[in-house]
């Protein structure tokens, strides 16, 4: 088992990074009831962990017995029927799914699954907990229509089911949904908190950590706890006992982007652009999302630039990322950004050195 899973807190009491939020959530469900919740925060900040712990708090250990199902829906949409397939994780009391996986037809999934859940209302002998929980991942990727159709459904079936929504940026969730939920912001853990967690894991695994080692991992992790723990485990596999100056292996795609950046800085010509295209393709076929590539490329370029150019470059990065979102082929826009940068940089070089 990976350490990330092994040391994932199972109950709200075990949570150490977001202790205050966990305690608040515990109070929230103390009366066997809760409102709809919207969790938002950057990746690796612990949204999913908190949701799972919260489910356990509400339904007891039964919430952990989940089964993975590949569900088929036949949806009657007037003239034609639509077949949809989606993987769901479910226990007796909750269903979890990522409706955005089915693309533009997500609307039907949202409507169907909620209505189905509302029909099979769980009955508890004590007359309590008369509701199910639907966990929806990546609600920020849901289409506008799906978000619209969530609105009234949430109100209409609120007696039978609660929604726990989980997303990275709440900007992309419509106002109408946000106003119907209790918003819970999960911030990324600070570097000290990451160090604490790493120390704790080290202690439980019986490892000896040289001083400053955990701090260095935390710095490399971009404030993502998941990444920090993965890095830590990689280091453990690589070399143990740790030495205080042990190199922390960077992600290979990051290395690769750094290489692209220095290529671009060295030469600005159509030929170089052609070479860079090959490298960008390489990244894309390895399933690195294009917006992440662009962001990382910007980060690498900014490191190497003079202050006066930074404004200009970051403006164009924002511009092309937006275009990329609207367009279909990411590679065009990545390449356009590189070409734009080359032209700016060349102009700068000529103006400065003649």
């Amino acid at each position: 088992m990976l350490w990330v899973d092994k040391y994932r807190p199972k109950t709200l009491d075990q949570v150490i990074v977001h202790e205050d939020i966990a305690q608040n959530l515990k109070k929230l469900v103390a009366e066997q009831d809760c409102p709809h919740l919207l969790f938002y925060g950057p990746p690796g900040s612990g949204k999913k962990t908190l949701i799972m712990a919260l489910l356990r708090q509400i339904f007891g250990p039964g919430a952990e017995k989940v089964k993975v199902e590949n569900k088929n829906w036949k949806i009657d949409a007037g003239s034609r029927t639509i077949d949809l397939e989606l993987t769901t994780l479910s226990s007796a009391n909750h269903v979890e799914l990522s409706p955005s996986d089915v693309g533009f037809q997500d609307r039907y999934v949202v409507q169907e699954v909620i209505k189905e859940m509302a029909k099979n209302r769980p009955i508890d002998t004590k007359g309590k907990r008369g509701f199910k929980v639907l966990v929806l991942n990546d609600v920020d990727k849901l289409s506008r229509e799906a978000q619209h159709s969530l609105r009234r459904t949430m109100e209409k079936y609120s007696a039978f089911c609660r929604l726990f929504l989980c997303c990275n940026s709440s900007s992309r969730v419509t106002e109408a949904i946000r106003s119907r939920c209790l918003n819970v912001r999960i911030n990324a853990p600070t570097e000290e908190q990451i160090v604490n967690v790493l120390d704790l894991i080290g202690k439980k695994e019986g490892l000896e950590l040289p001083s400053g080692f955990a701090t260095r991992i935390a710095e490399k992790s971009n404030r993502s706890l998941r990444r920090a723990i993965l890095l830590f485990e990689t280091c453990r596999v690589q070399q143990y006992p740790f030495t205080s100056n042990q190199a922390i292996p960077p992600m290979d795609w990051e290395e690769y982007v750094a290489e692209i950046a220095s290529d671009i800085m060295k030469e600005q010509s159509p030929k170089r652009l052609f070479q860079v295209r090959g490298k960008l393709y390489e990244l894309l076929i390895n399933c690195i999302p294009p917006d992440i590539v662009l962001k990382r490329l910007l980060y690498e370029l900014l490191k190497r630039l003079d202050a006066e150019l930074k404004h200009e470059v970051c403006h164009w990065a924002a511009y092309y990322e937006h275009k990329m979102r609207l367009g279909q082929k990411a590679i065009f826009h990545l390449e356009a950004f590189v070409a734009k940068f080359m032209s700016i940089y060349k102009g700068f070089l000529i103006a400065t050195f003649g």
Partner: protein
Amino acid sequence: MAPVLQSSQPWVEKYRPKQVKDVAHQDEVVRVLTNTLETSNCPHMLFYGPPGTGKTTTALAIAHQLFGPEMYKSRVLELNASDDRGINVVRTKIKDFAAVAVGSGQRQGGYPCPPYKIIILDEADSMTEDAQNALRRTMETYSKVTRFFFICNYVSRIIEPLASRCAKFRFKPLSEEVMSSRILHICKEEGLNLDGEALSTLGSISQGDLRRAITYLQGAARLFGSTITSKDLINVSGVIPPEVVGALFAACRTGDFDVANKEVNNIIADGYPVSMLLSQLFDVIVEAEDILDEQKSRICKRLAEADKRLVDGADEYLQLLDVTSNVMRALCNMPEEFQYDS
């Protein structure tokens, strides 16, 4: 519907006005509808206005008051965006329902029960144009036995031919006094303690949206118990603390790109929603007294563009960085045009 435990009901539902006259702050509508109740005469209606101002509540209340619980099922059809509302549904379901004749107007069980049915189309602005077009003739043909209630946020998304067939009512955002009195009423019912400061905070963060105010109140009450301070409310509402916005603004004033970049990184890592941040930054900039009008307009232009891009789904970090860099260049009087852009 099975009996529901009182506590499991959101307060928004619990305190939804059951009668038209209880709807707060929307005097014209209430006057017209009260009249309807007496004369049982009613035009087609179009309700529009920002969220949380009572549109759905009013429509449901009038339907209930006209027909009472027994007749409600057979006389009222309620459709919203969560039901499929393509052109097919308009052609079949709505038309079928509209076509059914109803008995003459006899009072039943103390309710007026006028001789027509009501079709409530909630969130009508998410209907396709085709579907709306298909409704035009249906509305007229069956106007003897059916009344339509359209509810939407943006009246501009309703096609003109439909809008002109209805009596239009704009629902105003609630004023602070109305909101306060409603909130205080709920606090009294639920046994909550709310001081004056918290009340005004609640008014300002909910911006005239009563549903949002009540949701925040319930959230805060759940999390922090029966005594609620303004800090608790800010905590549950997702409004960004003014210090964070201030820090970003101060970073822009320094004119150092790296300082600002670091601040942007922190904001993203803390998970603050950028769209919210932009609107709060906008307030700070418009109200700042030491910035020239020209600088303000330059910044606002960029804010508008970034907001549009965010709606399109662009990356939050890059947009915020772009805005920040632009604010910085405006404040430090750097040229607006890029130097090396050919």
